[in-house]
């Protein structure tokens, strides 16, 4: 069934009756004839279809791939395509791409322009590295990225170290004037008689009705079916991560990027933002949610591994409004099997808030460092008391049918002194409790030995004064 949906497309108010599940990419290209948005892969892997989505309050703009995005989620938003940046001439960013030869065949170019514009609109301090990282989800096969990097440098030069404002970006010829009118227009849209709201409230969970948070896994797995469907959506929250009673509470709808940028985690886990860069890509992290990553139940899920090591709790809510809370590790029962009833939803996750910075590490090995599914990944959190391990959180992906909590190793380590012998010994224990299999991400033997290597990486990262790489080589642990 089609539903009404009101949003602003570039500089134009739209009131469309549309199938909620239709991908924004198909909506733009096939229904609205906006051909500047390109179809590259329909997997969120290439970034050719990148758009910017603006939501109230403040109008928070984020770049994201249109191919994995259901049109039903456009309600009350500002959707920006390449056409929405168009003046009579190329703007400053577009001119930089021209000057540097950063476009060859041109097919990927609108996506790059939007990802970079989206980055400048995020309301964060601009750095060259940040701008480059924001292009991590956009593939170019022609240029080798050299010219693109030079164009990025040319563009962001006047903004370095600053947090650009909407008005500032307009003045720098990086946005068209009409952007200044958008906050008011979105407000007007919101006040209008409600469009049919497709958002699901927890009470309205129904069986057999697809429920979409970010859609980044679902649209890859069954995009054709979803495109014709009438799914419902988790409501994205502006502030999905908060501290309550000594716990950091993360709503299931929190995106991976919200997790990466969260100040509580950044304080508690040194290097948090940098380490999490290897998870998905900038544009995908704006859509992929924590809840989605968990319920997809992949044995290699990045966030699952991370949260398991942090000893997270999960809270589920049912259609009858009853709630269950238990350790996340009990959520994963077997391959693609979860302790989740068909009328239940993941409501939030809880991680203990600490005031001091923790010793921790996250490492992942994949063919490409970023935006690739790991062969193996692992996270560890250590607390130390008087030269011995007080507690250990350790999880690995790719070594078992589920995201794996290495409980035997964790238990074995507890109370043991911080020493090379302990480190080496723990790796033997770990080997006994993992059971990787051969698949396209790597052979079982590879993953088995990678698990040891990742363990060594944790020790080298957290206890570099106690051990060296050479110790692990000579200790025969690798």
């Amino acid at each position, binding site marked *: 069934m089609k539903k009404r949906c009101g949003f602003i497309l570039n500089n134009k108010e739209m009131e469309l009756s549309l199938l909620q599940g239709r991908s924004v990419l198909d909506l733009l290209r096939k229904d609205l004839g906006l051909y500047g948005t390109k179809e590259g892969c*329909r997997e969120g892997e290439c970034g050719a279809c990148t758009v910017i989505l603006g939501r109230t309050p403040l109008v928070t703009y984020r770049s994201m791939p249109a191919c994995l995005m259901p049109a039903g989620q456009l309600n009350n938003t500002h959707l920006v395509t390449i056409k929405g940046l168009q003046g009579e001439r190329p703007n400053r960013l577009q001119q930089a791409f021209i000057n540097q030869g950063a476009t*060859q*065949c041109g097919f990927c170019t609108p996506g790059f322009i939007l990802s970079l514009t989206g980055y400048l609109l995020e309301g964060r301090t601009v750095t060259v590295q940040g701008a480059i990282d924001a292009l*991590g989800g956009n*593939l170019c096969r022609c240029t080798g*990225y050299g*010219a693109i990097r030079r164009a990025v440098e040319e563009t962001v030069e006047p903004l370095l170290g600053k947090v650009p404002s909407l008005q500032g970006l307009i003045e720098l010829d990086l946005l068209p004037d009409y952007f200044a009118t958008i906050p008011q227009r979105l407000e007007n849209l919101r006040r209008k008689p409600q469009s049919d709201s497709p958002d699901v409230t927890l009470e309205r969970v129904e069986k057999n009705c697809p429920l979409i948070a970010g859609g980044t896994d679902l649209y890859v797995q069954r995009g054709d079916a979803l495109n014709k469907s009438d799914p419902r959506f988790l409501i994205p929250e502006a502030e999905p991560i908060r501290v309550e009673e000594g716990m950091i509470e993360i709503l299931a709808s929190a995106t991976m990027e919200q997790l990466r940028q969260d100040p509580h985690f950044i304080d508690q886990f040194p290097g948090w933002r940098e380490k999490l860069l290897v998870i998905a890509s900038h544009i995908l992290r704006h859509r992929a949610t924590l809840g989605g990553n968990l319920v997809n139940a992949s044995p290699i899920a990045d966030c699952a591994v991370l949260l398991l090591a942090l000893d997270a709790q999960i809270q589920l809510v049912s259609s009858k409004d009853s709630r269950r809370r238990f350790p996340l590790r009990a959520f994963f029962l077997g391959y693609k099997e979860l302790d989740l009833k068909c009328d239940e939803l993941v409501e939030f996750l809880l991680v203990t808030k600490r005031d001091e910075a923790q010793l921790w590490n996250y490492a992942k090995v994949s063919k*490409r460092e970023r935006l690739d599914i790991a062969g193996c990944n692992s996270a560890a959190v250590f607390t130390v008391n008087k030269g011995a391990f007080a507690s250990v959180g350790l999880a690995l992906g790719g070594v078992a049918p589920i995201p794996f909590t290495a409980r035997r190793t964790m238990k074995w380590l507890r109370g043991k002194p911080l020493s090379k012998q302990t480190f080496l010994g723990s790796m033997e224990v770990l080997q006994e409790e993992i059971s990787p299999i051969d698949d396209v991400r790597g052979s079982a033997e590879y993953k088995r030995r990678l698990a040891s290597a990742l363990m060594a990486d944790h020790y080298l990262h957290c206890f570099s004064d106690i051990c060296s790489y050479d110790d692990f080589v000579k200790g025969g642990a690798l």
Partner: protein
Amino acid sequence: MINPDTTYHVMGLTRYVDDRDFPARGLHCVVFFSPLAKGKIRDLDTSAARNVPGVAFILTAKDIPGENQIGGIIQDEVLLAEDKVNFVGMPVAAVYAWTEEAARQAVGRIKIDIAEEIPILDPREAYNRNELIAPVRTFTLGDAEEAIASAAYVVKGQAESGAQEHFYLEGQVTVATPSEEGNLHLSSGTQAPTSVQRCVAKVCGLAMNRVEVDVRRLGGAFGGKEVQANTWACFAALGAQKAGVPCRMVLRRSDDMSATGKRHPYSSDFTLALDGQGKFLAFKVMYYQNAGAAADLSTSVLERTLFHATASYYVPNVHATAAACRTNITPNTAFRGFGGPQAMFVFEAAIREASRISGICAETLQRKNLIKTGDCFAYGMKAENAQAQRCWDRAYAHYDLQKRMRAIDDAQKKETCSGQVARYGRGYALMPVCFGISFTTIFLNQARAHVHVYTDGSVGVSTGAVEMGQGVNHKIRELVADSLGIAPGRVKLESTNTTRVSNTSPTAASSGSDLNGAAARMACEMIKERLFKFKADEYQCASKDFSIRQGRLYREGNACEVCWADLVNQAYCSRVQLSAEAHYATPDLYFDKSVEKGRPFAYHTYGTAYFEAEVDRLLGTYSIKKAYVVHDLGRSINPLIDLGQVEGGMVQGIGWLTMEEMRYDETGRPLTATAGTYKIPDISFASLDMKVQFLEDVYNDKAVKGSKAVGEPPFMYGIGAFFAIKMAAGYEKPFYFAPITPERLFGELREGLVV
């Protein structure tokens, strides 16, 4: 002048084939592919598919009005499977429906019953079973056996390189529109409009003059749309022909990746013989090329492998043999470098092996043996105007390489002395490139151009070149403007269209601007000649007294009171022909296959790249830190475009040997045929310190305006990244297997772990 196309690109205004409204009364084609690599078709059931609402019809082999044959060089490939399937992804049936969704749904309902046979996936196995695409070829120079017998060092080894997916951002696409006479107009994403025209004509049973192919631009191609575009154009054409309505064929990424051919994987055995000082004496090599299930361009690719067997070096005695082996994977095809990279990889591996055995460092071996003017290649051509040593020496001087390499060597020595293994290792490698320019199929070295001068002085140019991001249109625009003495802004490049320029060669072999640019300039000279004669008659002087510069006519160096537009208009009113067609054929090319000798190349392009890599020996991961290049372009027509070609080609080459891995399971099913599983370099991986310098004071008298072709040669620099990684890994094992994915490197680092 900056390429004006780029303005449209950045503003999202550029239209590719599928970027236009498609009529509701138009058909969408989706293809049903073989799910198995080899077997006999027992039954194909399309009845359920036909009942899907919106389906118009389904075509199988028996429905093809013309010939079910799309083979080019060798006629061995059917468009639609008849009684057997030869690879996973082979088209079996084509569904035509009024919406793409309906066609896709219908494809899901087709059932096929195949008597499965055991496929051949390994080229060596195919060779042993005599499954060859064509007879084995051998290039010889001197007497390799004799030289090997008397050599100080003889090293042997095996090298493997993998398939590479083109990953053009715009997938394969054609829209076919029928005319009232039953002729077909195709808007196609092809590098070879004439090839599409010929192929469609044959399959549809039409004369070639009834098939018009128009190509505006491609969203990347890299060789993947040279022959491989034909298949999809045929499906669009068949639908349009049968239904009399437009038909759209757009491959989805996952279909594109599983059904189209890749760069050929090679498995090779080499023997390199050296004297005590490191002079190369002899090279013996056997290449097993994995051609896939049909010939495609395999024999030509194989030929170029043989031409580049000794890479950038002079070897007096050569015995190089190559076999195109028929297997049950997608028919492999052209990809930037076209067999050259595979050959050079083997030779560079042989150098590393020689260095390992002899103790002479690889750079010494490389420098000592670089090809010089007058040295003979195995195919009988002597190197002319060779720049290999100049590029090499210039790279050393300009980038201070000696010092950089010594710093890394010292760090390694220190590590060895300390007895402590360091987690991170640094390594370097130099990679010289010498690449022959011309189609090795001699007859393809021809091009035509049409130049129209309109009465307002604007100029329209049609050539056989296809714009796919390499900037060929803009280069031709600048060449035309330069030739006519007018501003480039006056010159428009038309689409590539078979009714305007016929019998085109593919835009390939790096030759697009060489050939088509030369033809366009010839056409301009013809027009100029007529204009000058017209003025000479008026002024009663000689034609040669005139020239045009900056849009003005000059007579013996003095400006006349006539600007370009007036000159053109006056000439028109005096009935002077203002259009010209010119034909260019590269001179002095010949090759005698009976003895495998000749002069197959107009010239060679040279360069040297220096790489530094860092390896994390714990995790088996790596990053490329530096790539410093000195590249010989002759006199660049457009340095910004050429820089983009060098950087882009190099990063593609690095990708080929590092992360890009096509995996197949034991039944021949591709495991990495999606964007999610096949990884190409991203901006983070490619954030290396990349510097490119063009060799100065060079002029190439064999190509247009002293320039050199640039498309393919830089790809092969990427080979240097592989060897820099190997050095950084720090083990002394003779493994030469590419791509060196983190998994493979991890295995090699921990000896014995076979991956």
